[in-house]
Structures are given as C-alpha cells and as structure tokens.
C-alpha cells in the first residue's frame, strides 16, 4: 500500500492519525505525496498556518491559544495551510468565507480570530523521551485547498502525548493574528 492509499483508507476513521501510523510508522509518508493534488511533500523549511475559528480556543485573559486547540493532532489530524503555497489574502479569504458560511447557518459561536504559524522543522524535531518523533507533517492537499497539510501525533502514553501537544502549542505563535 502506498501512502496515497493509506491516507484514502484512513480518511473516514475517527483516529485517522493512528490509522496512518499503523500502516506507515515513523512518519513514513513524509517523503512522498499523500495526495494527488499536492504541490509536493512538506519540507522542513516551510511554515504552516493554523486558522483559529473558536473563541473557546483562546484564553480570554491572556489571548493565548490553548493546548486543547491543538488536540486534533492526536486523532483526526491538525489541519494547517502551507504558507509557501498560499497567500495571506487566500488565508484571509478562507477564514472569512468560513465565517460567512457559519453566519448563514446561524452558527454565531464562531469567528475568524486569525492564524498562528510554526516552522515545520521545529515540529518535526519534537521527540518523546524515547527519542521517537512525536509529530509527522503530511502534504494532505485537497482539490480546493492544495496548500492543505496535516500534522499527526504518533502514539505514546496519554500523559506523554499531552505534554507534546503543549510543546506543539509553544512552537506556534501564542496569539492569533490576522494574516
């Protein structure tokens, strides 16, 4: 099974990252494209952008994004955009479009609060005490969003995984900013 197939197979899983990790351990799919729509595998010098839509993901006192805002990384994958393949205007448009859709659907609890960014190299350098990589970054492009990528967490004990998510939070900018 190649990586594209592994991602297709895991697409509907509640634990997409775990599933991919079982099929392709040790971030085995980082060096090849996992999507036919991708501009190419994600390289370490790239930066990735996470769009923040919920005020619940931000500490109301400090304005900092919470550790929980990065929790998707442990199961479905943390959706991010590759800055090298998308303009700030595009990112703003994605955020505003989503906000407008939510408004139309009566979802008033959501806003587009801005983005936080991190360098891929630093994400890939995070390891558990055992030395095992904690996060993989894949070029999971979508037909309508070629810059889309996913950050997936590798499996370890719950507390160790939690600590790494806090570390991931620290790698991203702490406060969302408008692109």
């Amino acid at each position, binding site marked *: 099974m190649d990586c594209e197939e592994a991602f297709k197979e895991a697409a509907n899983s509640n634990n997409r990252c775990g599933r991919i990790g079982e099929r392709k351990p040790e971030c085995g799919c980082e060096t090849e494209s996992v999507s036919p729509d991708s501009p190419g595998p994600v390289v370490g010098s790239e930066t990735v952008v996470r769009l923040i*839509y919920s005020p*619940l993901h931000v*500490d109301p006192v400090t304005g900092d994004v919470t550790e929980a805002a990065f929790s998707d990384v442990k*199961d*479905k994958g943390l959706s991010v955009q590759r800055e090298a393949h998308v303009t700030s205007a595009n990112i703003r448009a994605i955020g505003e479009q989503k906000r407008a859709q*939510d408004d139309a659907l009566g979802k008033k609890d959501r806003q587009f609060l801005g983005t936080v960014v991190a360098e891929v190299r630093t994400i890939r350098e995070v390891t558990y005490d055992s030395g095992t990589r904690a996060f993989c970054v894949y070029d999971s492009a979508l037909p309508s969003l070629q810059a889309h990528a996913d950050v997936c967490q590798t499996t370890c004990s719950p*507390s160790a995984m939690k*600590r790494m998510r806090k570390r991931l939070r620290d790698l991203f900018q702490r406060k969302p900013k408008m692109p």
Partner: protein
Amino acid sequence: MTTYSYHDRPSSSALSRSYVFGPGVSSVGHLGGPLAQTSTRAIWGGAVPVGNLGAGICQAPAWETADSKGQADGNPNLTSRLVEYLTLGDDWDGYEGKAASLETVMDAFNFLQHFPSTLPQPKPMIAGSGVIGLYWEGNGCYASIDFDGSEHYCYIADRPDDERGEDQVPVSAALPQRLIEVIAETTDRL
C-alpha cells in the same frame, strides 16, 4: 431516575449544585439533547431553571448563603464555561468539533468538588474531541488535566527542569501531591 448530587463545602461554593434527571432518561449519555436546549444561565446562572430543560431538572443550590456567595461569585466563569461545553453545536471549532459529553462535564465537576479552594483556580479548555481540560500556567510551570468521561483523568505537572504526569487517576481520588505542588508554583499569590 439518575441523580447526581453535588454537595460541596461552602468554600468551593460555585460547584455546589444538585442535578436530578427525571423518568424517561435511560442513560446519561442521552441527556445531551435536552441539555443542549437549555441555556447555561438556566443551569448555573440563577436559582430558577428557565428554558426547555427536557428530562433534566436543575435544583437551586441549597447552601448558598450571604457568606458563601462571595466565593461562588469568585469562579462563575469556570462553572458556566464547563456547562457551556455541553451545549456546543456540531463543528463548533470549524474543524468538526464535538460538544463535551455529560459524563465528561461531570468528571470535571467531580474533580473540582475536591479541589482545594486555597490553590489557584484552573482555567478551562475544550478539545475538538469533546475532551475537557483544566490548566494552570505561570512562573515557568504548567499543570494540565484532561477529562474524557471515563471517571479518570490524565495530567501533566511540569516544572522547567522536571516533567511528570500520570495517565489514569480516578476522578474521586485525592489530588496527587505533585499536581498540588506545581499548581501552587504557577502563582506568586499563595
């Protein structure tokens, strides 16, 4: 009938409430529906339930006195935020986020029921999976707890040079000493 009682000591006043869920509720997992139609204010903001409570009925806190009221007011944001997590709509975070389950919220409340009022109060957070977190951060220390509705929690209690945690602590168990120490170190006010 499923009954949850929270008779906390007055010092942790904001947590002292009683829930009684009436007939026709086969399991607590089914309560998301009726509770989803109940405003946070109806449950926590006042003594009298308002709105459509469905099968769930909230009773006013019996202990609330003039003396304890001030302490209840000290942490209304935490309790109301936890209840709010129950009523989040689908995709609340823009990434297909789920609301917290009733079991998860109950675990958080059960934990807080035993939480010493002398320690700094936590801040709440919620994950897209519906897992509820409580955290404390300051002075280079970070303590954080995750509740997933299993009646156990996972925590980390980290100092800059010393990281520790546990994967499965019963919600009803005494607070781990390590957690107490790191929580206390997140503030200078103690």
